[in-house]
């Protein structure tokens, strides 16, 4: 579950987010929900009526932790490819950036979410999500990034291939659903 923290005011009040290890697993859960989740759906609707339901794919860019987060903070950015960008260039830039993050001790987990179905036609190619264990860790990660030249490195690596706009930050709380 995600609740907006840094926000321009256009965000929903709460985002119910479900992660699956594969699209097969996601399909099973969706099917079960459609067939047997009616009563629970009514309970959800009475507490948090929802305006949209969308499907995306997550791809891990960097995750140095062994266990999933139970709570934390997620910084989102909306990103678009620039002309001439290739996935190979992106992968090379990611490798260099991940090396830097490791070297300076930043623990943030980085994922990209690719829109699939039911997403706004806003022209974005993907969302980048940077996960921190807490607001305090987000702060220290940001300091480490700035003081060690992360901004300059980011400009050098990514400016030729993509353009990102900082989006909202949200507080994350795991509510179960996994073994």
């Amino acid at each position, binding site marked *: 579950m995600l609740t907006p923290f840094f926000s321009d005011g256009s965000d929903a009040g709460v985002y119910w987010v479900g992660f699956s290890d594969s699209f097969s697993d996601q399909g099973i859960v969706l099917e079960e929900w459609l067939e047997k989740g009616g009563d629970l759906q009514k309970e959800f609707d009475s507490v948090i009526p929802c305006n949209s*339901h969308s499907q995306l794919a997550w791809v*891990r860019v960097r995750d140095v932790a062994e266990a999933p987060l139970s709570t934390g903070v997620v910084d989102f950015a909306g990103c678009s490819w620039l002309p001439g960008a290739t996935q190979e260039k992106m992968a090379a830039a990611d490798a260099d950036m991940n090396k830097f993050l490791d070297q300076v001790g930043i623990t943030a987990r980085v994922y990209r979410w690719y829109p699939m179905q039911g997403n706004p036609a806003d022209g974005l190619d993907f969302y980048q999500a940077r996960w921190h264990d807490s607001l305090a860790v987000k702060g220290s990660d940001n300091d480490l990034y700035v003081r060690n030249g992360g901004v300059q490195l980011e400009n050098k690596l990514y400016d030729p291939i993509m353009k990102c706009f900082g989006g909202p930050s949200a507080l994350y709380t795991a509510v179960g659903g996994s073994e």
Partner: protein
Amino acid sequence: MVKSALQFSLAISALMATQLSQADNHAAMPAYGGVEVYACDFAEGKDIDDLMKVAKKWDKWAKKIIQRRMPVMC
């Protein structure tokens, strides 16, 4: 939709290519999976405590599904 699916597919391909070269030719599928997002607002008079009560029921429901249809995850 076709464009988005293609971009995701390309991302997977490129990551595979990178990870293959980094892993000394040991096949490594990049970690990926599905996300579904509901954008919602709290109904009048409801708050996070009300949501957590429903979420607890949902957690039980989801765990049953995992045990029954996705035993590999248990």
